[in-house]
């Protein structure tokens, strides 16, 4: 029904793939993010940066999508880094006790450096 799209911008930079979803990542939207991440990971890039700076809200379906990507990344030798999280988004990672499982950087620049 209706819009289940979500804008997900992807770009390549210095051998890293940067994926930046926008808006709310909830059950109606996480499938699109999942497709973008899987696509970004097929080429087994050295680094995958997921910039969450434009994500205002995330529920556990979004978190599950990121956990799945992390597992694929690890298998493929890709370093996956999350960055730009707003407090509200960060708190769901803390509640899920996943804030230490993911590599989390403050900015895109920091995410390229860790």
């Amino acid at each position, binding site marked *: 029904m209706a819009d289940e799209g979500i804008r997900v911008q992807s770009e390549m930079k210095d051998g890293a793939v940067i994926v930046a979803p926008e808006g709310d990542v909830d059950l109606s939207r996480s499938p699109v993010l999942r497709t973008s991440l899987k696509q970004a990971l097929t080429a087994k890039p050295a680094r995958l940066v997921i910039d969450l700076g434009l994500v205002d809200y995330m529920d556990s379906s979004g978190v599950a999508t990121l*956990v799945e990507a992390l597992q694929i990344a690890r298998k493929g030798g890709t370093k996956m880094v999350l960055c730009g999280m707003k407090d509200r988004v960060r708190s769901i990672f803390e*509640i899920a006790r996943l804030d230490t499982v993911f590599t989390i950087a403050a900015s895109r620049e920091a995410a390229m450096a860790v």
Partner: protein
Amino acid sequence: MPIQFVEYRMTHPLTPTPPHAAAATRAPDLTLQMVSDPVYLSGAREMVSAVSRRLGFSEEACGQIALAVDEALCNVIRHGYDKRRDGPIWLSVWPEYGDNGQSGVKGIRIVVEDEARQVDPSQIKSRNLDEIRPGGLGVHIIREVMDEVTFEKRDRVGMRLTLVKHKKKDGGCCSAGGA
């Protein structure tokens, strides 16, 4: 184009007689009846979040209440209705008052009801969080952010989830405050 107005129940099997929303001795101030389509999650979240804010919860608490409601609705959609998008869900909201009813709003009570699969409440539980895998977080999140979480089978059909959150003692108020 000209929608013909007739009585609901004659035309739509989903709409029950009487409303199936949480039936408490005190009627809810708000009940949102929605179809089990994920596209409407944001509407439900924003409603609950705005109401919580107006009841005097902190910005952080409003976000947590919205998240718990979202996770509860997601579980109804995925596990209860197996992703069917046309099942009815009722989300009812009550402000909770202090014991004497004089001391203002102390918390919020939210009840989520459905006509979906019934499961034994003891089967609805969080997985071990140490094991890292996609999924299995919803129930944990709900229990973590709410003060009271009760799953029950409804009388004949469907499940009922009751969620209560109290305001923090320090007030933690984002939008109240005298002029």
